[in-house]
């Protein structure tokens, strides 16, 4: 009996040690088992791969991890939502490109003109582009694509119509102008597909058979496993693409992702997108470079719909902010990557405010403010954590920090259905969620701080605040001004930001980073240069032989 037990135990031990052994080679830190927190000294790999001399090489397949289930048909872009939209990138191209800074660049549309008086945007299209079925890309096709998106109801509702004004010119009609409209046209949800193929074969065929203008075309789509694209020999940019193919693999399990990044050859993946600081540290090795950027904080979002609730008082919200020791949060669970969020918009964006606006940690001030507000003994409230994006341990830490100043907090961790319910239908207490800064910062405000004005009654309403709250009108006006400028204006955006900070509409905690972990022999993908709509330029990417 003892012999048997010993034998088996020894086998298990051997396997475990073998599996963990790879870490000691790969890590610059001393983390022995994936999943444990290493010491705080962060390793920051360069944001660009080692310099390579010479022209791009041809050949190779780029393998990217995508965490969707991979079941959606991709041939009809305006039906595709969520992470699946990324999968369109190799075959589908949109009218514009968007950089992470928010700048717009031409793509299938060579030029555009904005008319704010008549509320139109006129696009001049490229003339040398063909679809993979040989049909021409022209104004007729482009207008048809946009109209389909409008009819599907998933495009910005401000876009009300489109018309053909020339063989390569279209005019889009708007209900109102906002400087987020152009970024809509950079999204792959509105990629151009062949009208001819669609009308000839019907929507069911089109769903399974994408016909786009992009550098690759669909080779094989194995639902739930991977999608493989192969080179489009007749791509409109001569000499490109360099790669033979692009493949997305649907790996949802973190451990398997790690194994895939560490593998090479046919099983190895070249690109992994993650915002888990833990994963970034685990995979850090000489074989990869880490391309990361701050994408906005995880914040506490209080609901003050109830005017009797303590959260409706500004001093209380300020007190909560003073009670949080942001630095120790990132020291404990930041893995050397995360940073404290002392303002809502991180300093990567132009809407960041001067240091005087920075939030700080001061428990005495917190208690003082609470007493001032009429809660010398604190009060009870609830924290509702967003599933998937928020680290549970952080939430528990916040709970104990608030406890220290007398605020009793109940924690709730609902599933995505329950959470969505809270967001759409209101909640008591505070949400803990990621408040993502999008490239066009006004989009951010629109998503989280959208104040609506009822034109008939002149009343302002906002899902997070009661309508009796004074600064609503101020916020509305500032948002309108920022949104309606022809181009994003940092000064105007700062105005909005100021209102949010002054009124502590949300309480930022720590900044999350979005990182692309890329193998060293992959070049010119541009993952962190392009915004979420554009993602990357598959035509420019290439792999050096290694």
């Amino acid at each position, binding site marked *: 009996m003892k012999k048997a037990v010993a034998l*088996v135990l020894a086998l298990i031990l051997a396997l475990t040690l073998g599996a963990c052994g790879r870490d000691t080679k790969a890590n610059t830190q001393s983390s022995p088992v994936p999943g444990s927190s290493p010491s705080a000294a962060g390793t920051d790999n360069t944001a660009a791969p080692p310099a390579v001399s010479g022209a791009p090489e041809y050949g190779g397949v780029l393998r990217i991890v995508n965490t969707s289930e991979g079941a959606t048909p991709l041939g009809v872009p305006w039906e595709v939502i*969520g992470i699946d939209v990324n999968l369109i990138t190799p075959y589908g191209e949109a009218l514009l490109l968007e950089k992470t800074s928010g700048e717009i660049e031409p793509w299938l549309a060579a030029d555009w003109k904005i008319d704010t008086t008549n509320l139109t945007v006129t696009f001049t299209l490229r003339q040398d582009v063909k679809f993979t079925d040989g049909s021409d890309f022209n104004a007729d096709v482009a207008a048809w694509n946009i109209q389909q998106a409008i009819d599907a109801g*998933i495009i910005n509702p401000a876009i009300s119509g489109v018309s053909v004004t020339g063989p390569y010119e279209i005019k889009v009609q708007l209900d109102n102008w906002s400087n987020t409209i152009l970024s809509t046209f950079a999204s792959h949800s509105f990629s151009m597909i062949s009208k001819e193929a669609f009308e000839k074969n019907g929507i069911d065929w089109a*769903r399974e058979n994408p016909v786009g203008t992009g550098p690759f075309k669909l080779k094989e789509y194995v639902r739930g*496993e991977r999608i493989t694209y192969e080179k489009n020999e007749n791509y409109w940019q001569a000499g490109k693409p360099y790669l033979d193919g692009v493949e997305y693999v649907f790996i949802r399990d973190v451990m398997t992702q790690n194994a895939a990044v560490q593998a090479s050859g046919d099983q190895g993946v070249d690109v992994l997108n993650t915002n888990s600081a833990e994963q970034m540290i685990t995979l850090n090795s000489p074989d990869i470079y880490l391309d990361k950027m701050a994408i906005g904080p995880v914040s506490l979002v209080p609901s003050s719909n109830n005017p009797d609730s303590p959260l409706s008082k500004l001093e209380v919200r300020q007190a909560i902010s003073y009670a949080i020791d942001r630095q120790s949060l990132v020291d404990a669970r930041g893995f050397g990557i995360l940073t404290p969020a002392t303002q809502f918009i991180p300093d990567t964006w132009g809407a960041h405010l001067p240091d005087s606006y920075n939030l700080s940690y001061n428990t005495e001030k917190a208690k003082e403010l609470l007493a001032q507000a009429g809660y010398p003994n604190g009060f009870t409230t609830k924290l509702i954590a967003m599933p998937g994006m928020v680290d549970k341990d952080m939430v528990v830490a916040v709970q104990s920090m608030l406890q220290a100043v007398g605020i009793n907090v109940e924690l709730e961790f609902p599933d*995505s259905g329950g959470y969505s319910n809270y967001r759409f239908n209101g909640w008591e207490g505070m949400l803990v969620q990621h408040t993502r800064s999008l490239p066009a910062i006004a989009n951010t405000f629109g998503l989280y701080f959208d104040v609506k004005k009822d034109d008939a009654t002149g009343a302002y309403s906002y899902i997070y605040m009661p309508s009796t709250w004074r600064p609503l009108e101020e916020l509305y006006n500032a948002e309108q001004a920022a949104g309606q400028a022809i181009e994003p204006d940092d000064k105007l955006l700062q105005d909005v930001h100021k209102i949010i900070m002054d009124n502590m509409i949300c309480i930022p905690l720590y900044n999350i980073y979005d990182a692309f972990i890329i193998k060293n022999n992959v070049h010119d993908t541009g993952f962190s240069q392009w915004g979420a709509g554009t993602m990357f330029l598959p035509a420019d990417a290439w792999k050096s032989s290694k």
Partner: protein
Amino acid sequence: MLTYIVRRLIHAFVVIVIVSIAVFILIRLLPGDPIEMLISQTQLTETTPEMIEALRHDKGLDRPLPVQYADWFVQMIRGDFGTSIMRNFDIGKEIGNRVTVTLMIGLSAFVIGLVLGPILGIVSAVRRGKFVDNLVTVIANIGITAPAFWVGILLIFFFGVRLKLLPIYGYTLPWDDFWMSFKQSLMPIFVTALGPIATTARQTRSSVLEVMSEDYIRTAWAKGLNERKVILRHIIKNSLLPVVTLQGTMLRMVVGGSVVVETVFVIPGMGKMMVDAMLSHDYPVVQAVTVIMTLVVVLSSLIVDLLYGWLDPRIQYD
């Protein structure tokens, strides 16, 4: 006998209807509206209630519940399982693909469990108290308690990353590329089969021990049969009854797949689809999958019951 089967099939139909109604109602009671979740995944920065209602109407979710159910049921009878709300795929076709994959892995694991489990159990019972028995018992306990994902990850890192012997993830159907399919299947099948082998071995062992102490086994010995003949002719058939019951419940796994194994090894099976649909409140997918699973469960219980009759002639059907 025939009337018995027909009766059972009618029961099966009734059970499926009842279960489908229950699931239909239950999933709509869960907090979280799929339309709201759908909208929140688009890149829209502004959502109006009108947009939400328009989308709801588009997907047919604003009709009265009985109408929705009746419509779905009639279509299902005709073989049309509808389209996914969240992801727009044809449910029937997708289930077809996924079931095939799950069957390949699940069936292999099931057969291995069916064969290996009883063998280990019999050996262990017949050599009770000896080294073999202890070894099998220890392995069985590990097989039952070790979580599938832990074993899976260990294997991936050891055989995939370290030794580079087996592929880390993915799945190919055997008729597309037999060798690749074989290599990719080894680890997932092993992980899936571990639990069933272990439970079957333990169940068989205790069942065999029980049978071994029966009087008719003593008679068999007294007739001068040697150990091999006593086991093969007298012990096995009589110990199989509880084992068959157990295997019957595992039949479900063959079609349902294991979401853990599928997630870790990136296998496009039924398990992932089910869980994904449930988390995103994709009503028609959840309903379709539940119907399929119910069908499998009632059919496998019918098969088990019929097997009983063959194993134990004392059982009558009326």
